[in-house]
């Protein structure tokens, strides 16, 4: 049985990472083909620097991802704290469901309805152009929020409800108690929420497509390359983005295990 489970895991990993591996492999191809490997070269990596449209797209994507994930994390954490503090079970259930809807909703519905709202609102206040940086940011915050709330609420449930009161008893002001006691006890939930939002925002295409206007994010830019065929510098760029996220996650895990070890040894 042990052999089977090992094979199963190996198969899973192969299927998950084979596409990425192929992409990384062909990003080092000197030719433009995705089918014939000519010889090793870094030309496409150099080529990225010149592709202004793509670099702009990358800049936009990263700006939106960092900002929307940060804002959603702050708002989502506050919302989660508020929701768990609701006394009535019915209201709590109701509010949770309402905040979860954007997550369940099909992207295309969210995208089109947000676009309509933005355009309608823009016309109302007399803007000649309503779609742009602000709208794509608001859209991303909207679909990120439920993920943050969803990852913070369980952490809040796990922590002792009396912790906050104990801190107050011991002389904390309510604000101090919140930042020094509540936040540290739910910080892993907050991090998970942040990382989820960041990655979701990074690879969102459908919602960005409808709401970005001039502020095209990377997935939209790449999609628009289909008149001519997609050039391998896209593979090179994707490789860099993939590796960056990969390294960040590994570092994040190392930092996390280290701090846990420290905490355990302190206990």
């Amino acid at each position, binding site marked *: 049985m042990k052999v089977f489970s090992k094979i199963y895991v190996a198969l899973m990993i192969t299927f998950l990472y084979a596409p990425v591996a192929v992409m990384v492999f062909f990003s080092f191809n000197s*030719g*433009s*083909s*995705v*089918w*014939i490997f*000519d010889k090793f070269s870094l030309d496409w990596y150099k*080529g*990225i*620097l*010149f*592709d*202004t*449209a793509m*670099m*702009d797209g*990358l*800049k936009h994507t*990263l700006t939106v991802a*960092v900002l929307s994930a940060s804002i959603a994390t702050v708002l989502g954490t506050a919302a989660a704290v508020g929701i768990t503090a609701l006394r009535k079970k019915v209201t709590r259930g109701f509010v949770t469901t309402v905040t979860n809807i954007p997550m369940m909703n099909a992207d295309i519905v969210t995208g089109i309805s947000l*676009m309509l709202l*933005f*355009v309608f609102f*823009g*016309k109302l206040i007399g803007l*000649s*152009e*309503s*779609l742009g940086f602000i*709208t794509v940011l608001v859209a991303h915050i909207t679909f990120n929020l439920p993920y943050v709330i969803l990852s913070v609420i369980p952490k809040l449930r796990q922590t002792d409800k009396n912790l906050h009161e104990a801190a107050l008893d011991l002389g904390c002001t309510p604000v101090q108690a919140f930042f020094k006691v509540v936040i540290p006890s739910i*910080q892993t939930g907050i*991090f998970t929420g942040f990382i989820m939002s960041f990655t979701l925002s990074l690879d969102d295409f459908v919602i960005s497509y409808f709401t970005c*206007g*001039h502020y*095209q994010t990377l997935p939209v*830019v790449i*999609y*628009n*390359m*289909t*008149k*001519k*065929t*997609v*050039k391998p510098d896209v593979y090179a760029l994707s490789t860099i983005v993939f590796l*960056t996220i990969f390294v*960040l996650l590994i*570092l*994040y895990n190392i*930092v*996390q295990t280290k*701090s846990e070890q420290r905490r355990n040894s302190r206990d």
Partner: protein
Amino acid sequence: MTKKFIALMLTAVLLFTLLSGCGYEYSADLDADLRGTYTKELSGTVLNVYNWGEYISDGSDDSIDVNREFEKLTGIHVNYTTFESNESMYSQLKSGGVSYDIVIPSDYMIERMIREDMLEKIDVGKLKNYDLIYDKYKNLFYDKNNEYSVPYSVGMVGVIYNSALIGEPEHSWKALWDEKYRDMSLNFSNPRDAFMTAQMILGQDLNSTNKKDWDAAAKLLKEGKDVLQSYVMDEIYGKMETGEAAIGPYYAGDYYTMLDNNEDLGFYYPEEGTNIFVDAVCIPKCVRNYEAAMLYIDFLLDPPIALANAEYICYASPNKSVVENEEYSFYQDEILYPGDEYEIEKAQYYHDIDPEIRKYYENLWIDLKLY
């Protein structure tokens, strides 16, 4: 832990922004070659440009980065965005949430946009370089009096074949129906282009409003379906380059991309005729910086800029200064420029077709796919 993580994230962001800053160097001697005069009068304003993806010279391989050069010369900031099809560009403009100063649609879409009053007039008399456009691209069906558009790029469909696998086929669309190339031939996977191949064999008008013509074309496609390996779009690159398929239709300019990866590939224009398209620069009604838009159009027509774009895009140029320039890589190239005789007498444009006819052939297409 929090701080470390945030620091890491920020470093990553910083690295990317650093990367994007470097790279391009302005070409110092460009100014002297330019025909038009570009002043800083409109410096500080913004110009929103909406073009096809990968459809402008961007500074790779020591070429000219057209948008940056324009910014340097005029001080106007170019906000450059891309679209992937005429239809998606059209719906973005229709949605009303965006405003553009320059759009570059294809012929039939310009026809529709003029009819729907979406385009602003362009006084071509005010463009210094307009005389560089060949007369054969003026007064075309979509803009009969040259009031709304300035040609940017031209392309034609031909047939690509692998000479190592099948030798030299007869120069006809019938090759795609030929039993000799069973399971080695490809055809377009979108109705308009696939029907075109059959319509050409039948000698029809590509914009026929007679449903019987479309029925006949569909019947011919059905007969050929069995011989065909598959209907493709972008996949043709891989199939032709690896030799998985031996013959298929595509755009002349894209043949060169495939040739780079497989030197056995050949190209011909079918004797029956083919489809030709023109993409042209227009100013939409939502324009906010009209003067800058006019300046930009003139800049695109300017010989060194038009040359750089023609080299990059690898489609035919409507600009005399490019076509007649001996230094142009495709100077007297018979594939991009097969000559007026073929181009004018054999090639046909797609017009903006009546919605009822479109619906009709789209249904025939679905029927064909299921056959």
